[in-house]
């Protein structure tokens, strides 16, 4: 039976990773706000690509990597293999992500991209090996765990494909061998890593937080198959030049539909009617899946990607970040503290969250996704400014929420420790007097 902090990585690692991830979302908002014109034009500009990677590699990547230091032990009901590996992988990931972003900002600077992509690739490969080693100790049978395993593998693959893209820009022989598989990089990252990551972790966490027990999990299984098959078809289309792109896109649409259906099914079976605000945000995220699909059908690929990333991924990841961080910090401070838990004065998990910040995060991201998608469709810099401001607001609120969760927990623990010490001192004094 895993214990957070004891069977996972040292708690400071995932907590720091999640806090940095939250801060990265605020940075995304600030950067969009500083470059609105870029989003009103061609989305392949280095500045746009750089901002995109602050979101994908730094915000989502760090939250995902931090979560992988603890969640697998809980999902697979085993101990995390090589728990101290995080001391190497997480800093490497953070440094590599920053280098990639700088490389894009400098107009696809080859040395920065090579270093950044190399570092992040190395970090993600190490994380995948750690995850596989953890799973091998007690191989999970549920489809949610399989989706999580595959998502980490695809994230590593997406980063390696990014490395390949960076190499193709600087080395003609690489470009001659593999071409420039940017579409495959998108599909593996957006669907293989992010969609499967949300499917895998969400299936377990949503069921747990909504008290929704049992039920068939075939949707999760088939969604995982569909994403994997879609990526294989797209790889064949890219490297063997087979006409399989449409089939791949149909499978991805089916996977998205299955995930939305699974979420609805979990909610229908739930017994906890009042969902907490971060969980409501996770559920709301799925409304962006059909919106992204509609945008794609109308030929608005840029808008579809924004709705998927900022809307679906942004809302889902920020929702789970708050819940996972609450668990991590609470167990870090109170598990085995012999203070008597909640009846001894420890706060409830829901008391760690500042409810006032939640609507700002949720509706800030909803507005940001809608405004930025509209900005690309109508080439409006003004809408991009609105999107930047809304993302910045949501990111600052998320960072404040994450800091609040950690601060309240640590302060509560210190207060209890001080009270226990005072009680002990009084007792000793009374005994001495007697």
């Amino acid at each position, binding site marked *: 039976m895993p214990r957070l902090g004891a069977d996972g990585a040292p708690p400071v690692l995932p907590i720091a990773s999640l806090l940095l991830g939250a801060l990265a979302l605020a940075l995304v908002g600030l950067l969009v706000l500083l470059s609105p014109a870029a989003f009103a034009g061609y989305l392949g500009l280095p500045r746009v690509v750089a901002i995109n990677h602050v979101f994908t590699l730094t915000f989502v990547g760090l939250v995902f990597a931090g979560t992988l230091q603890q969640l697998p032990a809980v999902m697979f009901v085993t101990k995390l293999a090589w728990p101290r590996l995080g001391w190497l992988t997480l800093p490497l990931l953070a440094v590599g992500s920053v280098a990639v972003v700088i490389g894009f900002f400098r107009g696809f600077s080859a040395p920065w991209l090579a270093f950044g992509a190399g570092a992040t690739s190395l970090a993600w490969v190490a994380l995948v090996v750690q995850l596989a080693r953890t799973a091998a100790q007690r191989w999970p049978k549920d489809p949610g765990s399989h989706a999580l395993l595959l998502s980490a593998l695809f994230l590593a693959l997406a980063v390696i494909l990014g490395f390949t893209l960076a190499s193709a820009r600087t080395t003609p022989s690489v470009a001659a061998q593999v071409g420039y598989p940017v579409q495959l990089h998108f599909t593996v990252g957006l669907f293989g890593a992010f969609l499967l990551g949300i499917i895998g972790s969400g299936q377990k966490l949503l069921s747990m937080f909504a008290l929704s*027990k*049992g039920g068939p999990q075939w949707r999760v299984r088939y969604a995982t198959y569909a994403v994997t098959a879609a990526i294989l078809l797209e790889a064949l289309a890219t490297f063997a030049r087979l006409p399989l792109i449409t089939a791949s896109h149909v499978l991805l649409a089916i996977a998205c539909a299955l995930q939305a259906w699974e979420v609805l099914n979990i909610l229908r079976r739930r017994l906890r009617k009042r969902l907490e605000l971060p969980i409501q945000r996770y559920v709301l995220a799925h409304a962006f899946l059909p919106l992204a699909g509609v945008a794609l059908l109308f030929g608005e690929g840029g808008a579809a990607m924004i709705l998927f990333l900022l809307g679906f991924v942004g809302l889902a990841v920020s929702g789970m970040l708050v819940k996972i961080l609450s*668990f991590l910090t609470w167990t870090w401070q109170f598990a085995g503290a012999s203070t*008597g838990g909640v009846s*001894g004065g420890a706060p409830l998990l829901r008391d760690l969250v500042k409810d006032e910040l939640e609507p700002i995060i949720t509706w800030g991201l909803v507005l940001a996704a809608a405004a930025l998608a509209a900005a690309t469709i109508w080439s409006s810099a003004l809408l991009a400014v609105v999107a930047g401001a809304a993302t910045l607001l949501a990111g600052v609120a998320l960072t404040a929420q994450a800091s609040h969760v950690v601060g309240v927990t640590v302060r509560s623990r210190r207060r209890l420790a001080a009270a226990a010490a005072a009680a002990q001192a009084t007792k000793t004094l009374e005994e001495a007097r007697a």
Partner: protein
Amino acid sequence: MTETELTEINPAVPARNVLEALHAVIDPELGLDIVSLGMVYAVAVVDSQVAIEMTLTTPGCPLHGSIEADVRHCLGQVPGVGDIGVELVWDPPWTPDSMSAEAKRSLGFY
């Protein structure tokens, strides 16, 4: 709701008192005590030794360590309780139906 099985052999403290004390162990996520949540399957008291058979909402529950520590802490305060054994079991699995009506109501089931 789960009915807790109570067993006593020459008990230093009644098993019912031990079960009563476990009402002080609160699940930090749900904000309800483990008895009302139906997690305590059995309490056995032999002389001063107490054995608790209980479950959690999910096998990988990250709060496992803290809840078990709280059980030991709470029972340690009960006069007459000596050694404490806590065994986590997964069969039968916990379901929301295991909860008391009051617990269900406070979580908004109705």
